[in-house]
């Protein structure tokens, strides 16, 4: 340990107590981001301690990365500087919960599945079914901006986050929004914190709207010879009166991915290995309701699938459905686990362009002889995972070539794409945050307001913010 970090360590101990400061390199390894290890980790348990930590960091020009369960630290660019890991996992209280009002307030470090368990006692839930569900904290799920299958019906955190408390880069505790389900008082600053990778503030508390638990859920699955047909099915459903809770399209490669060793490590299930077709595209959609509604969905989806040229169709329910849902939710962690150089592109296009976007991406991957697999959400968000078997230079060149072409093709469609997950050593060459954006200048203005000294996750976000 250097002298400087020893001094820092003792100052941190003054703020959070010696037992909540980590300076031992072996322990600090757990906080590594893109091969950078901080000189200390601090585990505050109150907002007061967080703003003291931030003030100290500002004074000493130290860079802070707020962390929760550390499941998504690999997202984005490597930090330019990384001195202190601000571990918020001790801020894990449920501050308030009014089941009758379907609203709650929770500290950022609360594990998402713990919150889910509390809500389940009241037959409620938060539709934040995001990757790493069994590990991630609520703050991390929001700050990383990851999505989940339920966004088809419930939207993303943006649609049910009611308010937030956070500490800015000047060590000021502030808040926006409120606890009630409808509110237009003041600017919606909390929306800016979603997906900002902690570059604007340290989230300390979040207020959410909760939802009544879904009962009687089923999922319809149909397989198609081509991506066009699978997407055609998606279009057909979206033009109907059906309002399913989930809707995804899987590439043929997902069958192998979900029955891989990697999958059993990330999300152990007892699903039949042949559930997904290894040669065809799979359309899947979850729905819920009373018995008549379920029958209606099933009948109508079967009819649509037939008209759209499905090869086969089936309906899942019970434990099989739960397992299948978990695999779908954990697509990203499974993909990352399955390759030494997993590179996952997030492609956003208009829903009707998904077929073309998927065709473009798969052609580029094939041309570069890269293994790939894809999951597309019905709303026009595609996770395209390039899963090389090697991580050497030759592979890198292939991935770079494919990724660049996919980004360009996506831009040509009027959409946008980023590469949120890829090997650290490729990050300086891959366009992690996609092509330059016209509204970037407006984002920089915000960064200057919230974090003028640039101490929060420097360099990790869009445009190197």
């Amino acid at each position, binding site marked *: 340990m250097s002298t400087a970090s020893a001094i820092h360590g003792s100052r941190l101990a003054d703020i959070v107590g010696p037992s909540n400061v980590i300076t031992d390199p072996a322990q600090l390894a757990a906080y590594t981001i893109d091969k950078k290890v901080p000189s200390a980790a601090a585990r505050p348990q109150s907002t007061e301690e967080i703003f003291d930590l931030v003030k100290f960091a500002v004074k000493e020009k130290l860079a802070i990365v707020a962390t929760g369960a550390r499941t998504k630290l690999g997202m984005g660019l490597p930090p330019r500087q990384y001195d202190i890991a601000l571990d918020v996992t001790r801020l894990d209280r449920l501050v308030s919960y009014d089941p*009758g*009002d*379907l609203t709650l307030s929770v500290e950022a470090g609360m594990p998402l599945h713990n919150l889910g368990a509390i809500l389940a006692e009241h037959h*409620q839930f938060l539709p934040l079914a995001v990757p790493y569900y069994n590990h991630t904290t609520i703050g991390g799920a929001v700050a990383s901006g990851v999505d989940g299958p339920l966004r088809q019906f419930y*939207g993303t955190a*943006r*649609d049910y986050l009611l308010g937030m408390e956070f500490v*800015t880069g000047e060590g*000021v*505790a*502030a*808040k*926006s929004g*409120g606890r*009630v*389900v*409808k*509110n*237009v*008082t*003041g*600017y*919606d*600053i909390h*929306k*800016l914190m*979603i*997906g900002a990778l902690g570059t604007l503030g340290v989230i300390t508390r979040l207020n959410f709207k909760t*939802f*009544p638990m879904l009962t009687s859920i089923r999922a319809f699955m149909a397989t198609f010879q081509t991506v066009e047909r699978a997407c055609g099915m998606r*279009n057909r459903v979206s033009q109907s*009166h*059906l309002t399913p809770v989930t809707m995804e399209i899987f590439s043929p490669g997902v069958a192998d991915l979900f029955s891989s060793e990697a999958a059993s490590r990330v999300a152990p299930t007892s699903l039949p290995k042949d559930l997904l077709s290894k040669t065809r595209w799979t359309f899947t959609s979850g729905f819920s*309701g*009373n018995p*008549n509604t379920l029958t*209606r969905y099933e009948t109508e989806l079967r009819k649509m699938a037939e008209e759209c040229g499905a090869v086969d169709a089936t309906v899942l329910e019970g434990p099989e459905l739960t397992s299948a849902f978990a695999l779908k939710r954990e697509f990203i962690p499974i993909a990352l686990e399955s390759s030494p150089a997993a590179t996952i592109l997030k492609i956003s296009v*208009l*829903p*009707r362009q998904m077929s073309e976007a998927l065709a473009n991406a798969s052609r580029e991957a094939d041309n570069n002889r890269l293994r790939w697999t894809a999951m597309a959400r019905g*709303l*026009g*968000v595609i996770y395209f995972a390039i899963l090389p078997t090697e991580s050497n230079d030759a592979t890198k060149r292939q991935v770079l070539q494919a990724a660049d072409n996919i980004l360009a093709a996506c831009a040509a469609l*009027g*959409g*946008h794409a*980023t590469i949120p997950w890829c090997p650290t050593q490729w990050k300086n060459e891959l366009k992690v*945050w*996609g092509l330059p*954006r*016209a*509204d*970037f*200048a407006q*984002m920089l*203005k*915000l960064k200057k*307001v919230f974090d003028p000294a640039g101490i929060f996750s420097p360099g990790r*976000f*869009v445009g190197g913010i």
Partner: protein
Amino acid sequence: MDTRAITDLKKLLGPDAVLHRPEELLLYEYDGSVENARPNCVVFPRNTKDVVGIVQIANRYQTPIIGRGAGTGLSGGALARQGGVLIAFSRMNRILEIDAENQRAIVQPGVVNADVSVAVAHLGLHFAPDPSSQKASTIGGNVSENSGGPHTLAYGVTTNHVLSLEVVLPTGELVRLGSPALDSPGYDLPGLFVGSEGTLALVTEVTIKLTRLPEAVKTLLAIFDTVDDATETVVDITARGITPAACEMLDGWTIRAVEAHVHAGFPIDCAAVLLLEVDGLREAVEQHAEDVAEVCRLHHAREVRVARDEHERALLWKGRKNAFGAVGRLSPTYYVQDGVIPRTKLPQTLRRINEIGKKYDFEIGNIFHAGDGNLHPIILFDAREEKQFQRAVAAAEEIICFCIEMGGSITGEHGVGMEKDRFMPLLFTEDDLNLMRRVRDAYNPTGLLNPGKIFPSTKGCGEIRVRPTPVGASRA
């Protein structure tokens, strides 16, 4: 204001697009609030280029600029509090593109809310946010205020339906925020700009989501003999996890005002009605309606009527949406509050509002979005009598303070504007407000865009200032 500014504006826009004589400006002194403020001139841009030009001229002469749609806002958001150039978007009223397949549309800010839904109805789509003013209010205004409406209970407010904005910053820069495809990389700029009450930028184009019309709709009218029974019903419906598409409450006093004017078929001898709507698939709607009706009966509803056809349904909604107009016939002026409370606190809050009315000797009507706890107490008063006006303001303040005490908010959908700025310190600390001010200053550095809105000029709640003089306008 520098008269050369008017000359320059006329040169840019043509003489028919600039109003500046006092009699021409009268109409633009008001919006739907109890405030008034006169601009120095009103201009009517036809396109984005005009807007950029106007902003440049305003900057040249250091004069305030304020965007305005239909002027139906209820918080003074579209009033020229410090004079200046009022930009009326009524000529930028074209729907530029309808993409039914992707359920998106691109519209100019002056497009009337209801016109969007009319334009896409044949495609089985609509624009979900439906403020009661939707036949007049514009998308630009909805975006600025993040407007709600009865059906936002199930469908969300404006911000949930906006994907991308083209805006002119107060510096004259033209920028596009967000994108028609989801999850635009970077900070959620549309999320910040929607609901910023016209203080960050002038919106010149909006990409909105279109929502499929439900297959089946059932509208129910539950009639109650006590207000408590009605509010307890709402509490119970919410707690049971039943989410109707809309859940509106009208109290007896309001019903009588509405019936005298609209004849919607509300019973005039009851204490309150709930106007409930469920929608979705045929198979679900039948059962949902029955579930809702059962809760109403459990709480002693005298009667639960189901609208038999589209005509009856439209009539019930006409009664609801024209209620404010009906109230306007009873009194020269009224003051509507927009506080929000947790739904569980509805019964005690309505009782408290009643007590406050008695204390200040006002009849306070209640017609509101009960399902999301968004109150609209209406205080009738005669603005020509200063003392009455002061009493009305004091009563409104007590209601707002009670909402905050209940863990609620001062505005659910009308905005802070110049009407509720003084309440902001009751909800936000000086640190919170300073951060928001700095966000404003980042985009609106000179403060010339819509000055005097949202942020209090006075400090702390102990110093809440009541405006010394009442405004003298009637509003219906």
